[in-house]
């Protein structure tokens, strides 16, 4: 069964906070739920499906449905694939709606890593029972050095340069200057990026995303519900999800799970990479964007460096406007999970509600892609293609 045209994104909300010292984690989820329902023009009693991931406290849906006072839920999903979870949730919500299991699915994400650090709470980390952890933790892996090894290998095999990676951050910064909520709003140059301090070779500080509090929410609804509302229609055209891992020691760091999630989503949507007018690409690091663009087929494998150079990702300048909210590199990476904001900005673009300085004209088909986990080890990749009603 295809999900094409079976579901719509009727509500979007991005929490404005980037530092939520005065708010609890559940409170952020609730403010987001309220924001997304108001955006759609629905009430909490209309919600009959609820989705959250590992950022939600307790047993996820069980605790949050009670806290939020949702009384009509008949479908629950707590799929956890790290930062890509919320893109997977849209896929699963569309499947559930197509199967008649629910008609108004609420998805929420919230996090407060900045506030938690300030309060001395340790970072949320996965269980020591994870079978891989004994063989990785003693070597002092961290998020940056695991992505850095992907960049190092990509450079080795394809001649990708730090300057080319820097263009990705430059493009994000051009967009972030127009976003009043963005954590970093200064426009930067390639020189700024390559001259910023080296964190883990070859990734500089400006190759890395921001750490922020906040979150976001989505409302995925049936066609009947979507057409009864006053908001511009954002149709789900297709989706794909795929794990990628170290395969028992057969390690290749030059590609991501987008190799599989992308083709599946394009096939379901019945579109090609050249049909995409706008792309939200998970940007935990610049290398994440580069590998993903290649894997999704926007350019040939190994040619990502040339593709992103010279402003090709800048709205109004290049061929593929990306992350027009400033992305994780400049705007927001709530709870260290960037998939949610990727869908939100893609939906804004289809609605024509992005900032006028970055809005893509006649944006009828958009893509959102997430990479959860670690590009340098095991990841959950998820691709979503959205369209206008005419698409």
């Amino acid at each position, binding site marked *: 069964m295809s999900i094409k045209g079976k579901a719509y994104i009727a509500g979007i909300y991005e929490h404005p906070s980037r530092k939520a010292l005065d708010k609890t984690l559940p409170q952020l989820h609730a403010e987001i739920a309220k924001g997304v329902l108001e955006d759609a023009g629905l009430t909490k009693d209309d919600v009959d499906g609820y989705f959250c991931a590992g950022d939600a406290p307790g047993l996820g849906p069980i605790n949050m449905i009670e806290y939020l006072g949702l009384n009509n839920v008949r479908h629950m999903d707590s799929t956890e694939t790290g930062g890509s979870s919320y893109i997977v949730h849209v896929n699963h919500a569309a499947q559930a709606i197509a199967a008649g299991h629910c008609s108004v699915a609420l998805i929420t994400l919230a996090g407060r890593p900045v506030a938690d650090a300030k309060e001395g709470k340790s970072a949320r980390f996965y269980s*020591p029972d994870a*079978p*891989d*952890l*004994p*063989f*990785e*933790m*003693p*070597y*002092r*892996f*961290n998020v*940056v*050095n*695991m992505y*850095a*090894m*992907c960049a*190092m*290998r990509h450079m*080795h095999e394809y001649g990708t340069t730090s300057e080319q990676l820097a263009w990705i951050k430059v493009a994000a910064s051009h967009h972030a200057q127009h976003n009043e909520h963005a954590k970093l709003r200064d426009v930067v140059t390639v020189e700024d990026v390559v001259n910023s*301090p*080296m*964190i*883990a*070779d*070859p*990734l500089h500080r400006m190759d890395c995303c921001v750490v922020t509090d906040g979150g976001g929410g989505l409302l995925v609804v049936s066609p009947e519900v979507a057409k009864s509302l006053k908001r511009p229609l954002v149709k789900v055209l297709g989706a794909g999800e795929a794990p990628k891992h*170290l*395969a*028992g*020691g*057969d*390690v290749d*760091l030059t590609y991501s799970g987008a190799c599989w999630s992308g083709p599946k989503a394009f096939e379901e949507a019945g579109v090609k990479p050249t049909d995409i007018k706008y792309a939200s690409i998970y940007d935990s690091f610049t290398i994440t964007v580069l590998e993903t663009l290649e894997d999704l087929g926007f350019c040939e494998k190994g040619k990502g460096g040339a593709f992103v150079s010279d402003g090709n990702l800048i709205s109004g300048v290049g061929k593929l406007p990306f992350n027009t909210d400033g992305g994780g590199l400049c705007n927001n990476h709530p709870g260290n999970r960037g998939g949610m904001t990727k869908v939100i900005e893609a939906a804004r673009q289809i609605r024509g509600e992005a900032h006028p300085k970055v809005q893509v004209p006649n944006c009828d088909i958009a893509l959102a892609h997430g990479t959860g986990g670690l590009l340098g*080890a095991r990841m959950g990749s998820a691709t979503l293609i959205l369209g206008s009603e005419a698409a």
Partner: protein
Amino acid sequence: MSTGQKSKPRLIVNSENKPYWEGAARGQLLIKKCNDCGKVHYYPRSICPHCFADNTAFVEASGDGVIYSYSVTRQAKPPYVIAYVTIDEGVSMLTNIVDCDVEKVHIGQRVKVSFVEAEEGYALPVFTPA
């Protein structure tokens, strides 16, 4: 031999991986081989991730390999090298490159296994330039 850390590394030892750490303590790098399909894998599991047979055994690897990729974590004092090393048996493993000039580490470099003392009498396999 040291990973540059101030204290001995504390390992996560469980019933499935204990022979691996005991091997390291004896100065052996062990990988798992499947007696059904004949393939090796890393990290070690009780059931073969290639064919799903529950017929795997630890075998000693040569300990020689080549750097597949690496990164120098500059914010640490002193900076340390994390790497994937592809050992000659064909599997790649996450590790550290130690006792080396961090500015000279490179992809394709030949390395050999070495062992760092860990807590509770175990040892951690690492690699040094060959």
